[in-house]
C-alpha cells in the first residue's frame, strides 16, 4: 500500500499551524490509528484525547477535512484516496494544545440541569415502566458526550457571546431525557426558555447530522421541547394537568 499524508493542526491558544506527516498506509485503519502512529514516531508530544477506540466514550472528537467526527470511527478508506487528510481541533471550544480543546463549557452547563425528582415507588416497592415508554429516553441516553453537536451548532460556533445563555443540543437532549422520564416530577420549562436558550435554536438540524449515535436531536428532543415550552409557558395549571394525565395513563398501561 502507498503512503498517506495527514495535516494536523499543532499549536496552543497563542496560535499554531498545520504540520504535515507522512506514514505508510495500513489496511483497515481509522484516523485515530494514523494519529497514534504519528505520535509514536514523529511527534511524541502530540496532544490528542482518546479512550475506547470504539465510538463509545466520546473522547476523540475532532474535525476531519472540516467535518466534526470521531477519529476512532472514521475509516481511512472512507476518505478521498490520495488526498491529504486534514485534522483540526473542534472549533467551538478554546484550544488547549494541538487536537485537545477545553470542553468545560459543556460540563458547566450540565451542572445547571435540575436533577431527576422521582415519584414514589409502587406499593410492592418497585418502579413499573413499560419498554415502549422508555424507548425515547433510552435514545437520548445513548449520548456519549462527544460534544460534536455542540461544536457544529452555529449559535455558539461563531458567537462566543451566546455561550452564556445557550446550552446547546447536547443539553437539550439531557433536558428532554429528564422531561420525558416516566419517573420524573420536576419542571424545567422556565429554565429551558430563559437560561438554556431553547428559543435561539432555529432547527437547522446540523447537530443531528453529525451525531455519531444517530440520535434524532432535533425531531425527537428539540422540537417536542419547544412545543412543550410554548404550550405551557403561561399556563402552569395546564402543564400540571398534562403531567398528571401522562402519569395516570402510564400507570394504567402497566396494570
Amino acid at each position: 500500500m502507498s503512503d498517506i499524508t495527514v495535516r494536523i493542526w499543532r499549536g496552543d491558544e497563542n496560535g499554531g499551524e498545520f504540520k504535515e506527516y507522512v506514514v505508510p498506509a495500513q489496511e483497515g485503519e481509522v484516523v485515530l490509528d494514523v494519529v497514534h502512529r504519528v505520535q509514536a514516531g514523529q511527534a511524541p508530544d502530540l496532544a490528542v484525547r482518546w479512550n475506547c477506540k470504539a465510538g463509545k466514550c466520546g473522547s476523540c472528537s475532532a474535525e476531519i477535512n472540516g467535518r466534526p467526527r470521531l477519529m476512532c470511527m472514521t475509516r481511512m478508506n472512507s476518505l478521498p484516496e490520495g488526498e491529504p487528510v486534514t485534522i483540526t481541533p473542534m472549533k467551538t471550544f478554546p484550544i488547549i494544545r494541538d487536537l485537545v480543546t477545553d470542553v468545560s463549557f459543556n460540563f458547566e452547563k450540565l451542572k445547571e440541569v435540575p436533577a431527576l425528582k422521582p415519584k414514589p415507588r409502587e406499593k410492592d416497592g418497585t418502579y413499573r415502566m413499560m419498554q415502549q415508554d422508555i424507548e425515547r429516553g433510552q435514545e437520548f441516553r445513548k449520548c456519549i458526550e462527544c460534544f460534536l453537536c455542540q461544536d457544529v451548532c452555529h449559535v455558539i460556533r461563531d458567537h462566543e457571546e451566546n455561550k452564556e445563555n445557550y446550552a446547546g443540543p447536547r443539553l437539550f437532549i439531557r433536558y428532554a431525557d429528564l422531561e420525558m422520564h416516566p419517573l420524573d416530577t420536576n419542571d424545567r420549562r422556565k429554565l429551558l426558555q430563559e437560561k438554556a436558550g431553547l428559543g435561539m435554536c432555529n432547527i437547522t438540524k446540523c447537530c443531528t447530522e453529525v451525531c455519531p449515535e444517530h440520535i434524532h436531536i432535533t425531531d425527537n428532543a428539540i422540537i417536542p421541547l419547544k412545543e412543550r415550552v410554548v404550550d405551557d409557558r403561561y399556563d402552569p395549571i395546564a402543564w400540571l394537568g398534562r403531567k398528571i394525565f401522562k402519569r395516570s395513563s402510564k400507570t394504567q398501561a402497566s396494570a
Partner: protein
Amino acid sequence: MTESSVETHDYDVVIIGAGGAGLRAAIESVARGAKTALVCKSLLGKAHTVMAEGGLAAAMGNVWPEDNWKVHFRDTMRGGKMLNNWRMAELHAKEAPDRVYELEEWGALFDRTKDGLILQRDFGGHRYARLAHVGDRTGLELIRTLQQRAVAMGIDVFMELKIVKLIHDDSGAVAGALGFWRNSGEFVLFRGKSFVLASGGIGKSWKYTSNSWESSGDGHALALWAGADLIDMEFVQFHPTGMVWPLSVRGLLVTEGVRGDGGILKNSDGERFMFNYIPPMFAPDTADSVEEADKWYDDKNFRRPPELLPRDEVARSINSEVKAGRGTAHGGVYLDIASRRSPEYIRRRLPSMYHQFKELADVDITTTPMEVGPTCHYAMGGVRVDPDSTRATVDGLFAAGEVAGGMHGSNRLGGNSLSDLIVFGRRAGIGASERALGMTSTPKISEALVNDAISETLLPLTRSDAENPFSVQHDLQETMQDLVGIIRTHRELEEAIEKLEVLQDRVDKVGATGGRRFNSSWHTAVDLKSMITVSKACANSAILRKESRGGHTRDDFPKADPEFGKINHVVSFKNGAMSVTPAPLPVMPAELAVLFEDAPPVSNPTPKGGDK
C-alpha cells in the same frame, strides 16, 4: 520547588478514579457529610466503565424467581474456582440488587420485562438470567447515572489530573496524594484523611487488550509503593471474544451478550467445538448435545450451552482450537449469531456490536459470523482489602472496583464487575468517610517528600535525547503478551522476569520531548512506571503458582492443585524490593460452606477433549 508554591487542596476524602467505583464512593462519602474530592485522568464520564457492554449481575429474580443471593454467591465462588474472598462474594451477592434499584431511582433506564420490571439477561457462569442491562451499552448507562447524581450533589471533580504518588505522614498513614494537571503539567497536592483507590485495571501492559490507555495499573502501583499489599496478581482474565481483524482494532471487545443471546462458537471446519471442552467441574450443569443446548435459551430446566461456560474455560478452548490449526484466516474462531437469530433481534439486542463490526470491520453481523479470539480484559488481582470497609493494609487507604482484589478469586464472571463497583464503591465511601469524620485534624506531611516526588516525575522531561517511551511501552506489551499471556510455563515466566528487569532499567531512563502541557510522551513515560510495576507483580506471582486455575493456566502444570487452592499470593514492596508470599484463604463459615457440599471439585482445566 516548595510545597507552598504547589497548588494544594485539603479534603476529608480523596477518591482517585471516576469510573463506577469512584463515582459511587464519592456519592456515598458526600452523602455522609465528608468533604470529598474526585480525581480522574480523563474527562468525567470517559472512564473504562463507560465501555462495559453486557450488563450488571444482581439476583433480583425478575426473570427467574428461583434466583436469589445464595445462587449468585455460589456461581461467583465456583466461577472464581473457590479462591475468592468469601465475605466479599457474600456481600456482593446480597447487596447488588439494592444497588441496582438505587440506580433506577437515580434515573437509569434499564430494559424492561413485560411486567415493567428490570429485564435480566443470560451470561456465562450465571445459573439464571441475572444481568440488568441496556442493550449492549450498560456501562454507559451506569456511569452516566452515577455521574449525573454526583454532579447534582455538587461533588468537586478534578478532571484530567494524574496522581503519581501517595505520601505518608509521620505515623505511616497515607495523608497526601501528589498529581499533575495533564493540561498544564502543573503539580497539585491533595492533603486528606482517607484516600480511596478506584483506578481500574492493568490491561494496557498487554498487546492485545480490550483496555484503554488509562488501564496502566496506577492504583495497583500506588498502593504497592505506599506499602499496601496486593493479592492474586497472577490472575488476569483473557476475555474469549475480542475482535481479531482488522489488526488496528485487534483486542476490541465483543460482548459475552452475543453468546447469552444465542451466538455459538465454530472452528474453521464449521464444528461447534465447545462441546469438546466441558470440564468435569461444570459437566453436571452443561449440555452435552446441540439439541439440549438449544433448548436451554427458552427453558432453564435444560442444561446450559457450553459457549456459556466461565470465561477462562472458553478462552482456553479457543486458544487450543487455533493452536490445533482450526482457526480462521486471521487467527481466531467464528462467533455466529447470524444463522441463529433474526436480523431485527440482533440489531435490537446488540446495537453497538452491530455498529462496531459494520463501521470498523465492514462485517454485517446479521448475515456473517464474526472472527474472534481471546483478549486481555480484566485484573482479578488487586489491593488486598478488608471486605466490609474496603480498608487496605496501610492506614488511610481504601480500594474498590477493579483495583481491589479478592472478590473474583481466580476468574471473574461476566457482569460481576459492574455490580462489584456499586456494592464496594458504596462501602468504600462509607469506610473512608467514617475514618475521616472520626479524625480531629488533618495529618501533616513533609515538604521534602512532596518535592522529591515532583522532581522524580519531571525527570523524563530532562532527558529529551533518551529513549522514546512509546518504544519501551511497545516492548513491554510484547513481553507480557508473549510470556505472561493466556498459557504460561516456568521457562517463559523466568524469561519474562529477566526481561522485565531490563525493561525496568529502560523505564527508569526514558525521555520525553516537548514541554509540560498535555504532552503525550511525558504522560506515557510516567504511566510506564506503573505498568512495569504491575507487570512484575503479575509475573512474579505467576511463576510461584505451579498449577492451573481460573485466569492462570500453566502448560507445565495443567491441573488444579488442591494445595494451591488453599492460598492467595500476596505481593508487597519493601525498601525497593518486591516480594511474593502465600497467605491462607480466609475460612468460609459452615452456613455458607454447605452450599458447595454436592458440588464437583475444582477440575483440571484442560479436559480430555482439549487436543481434539
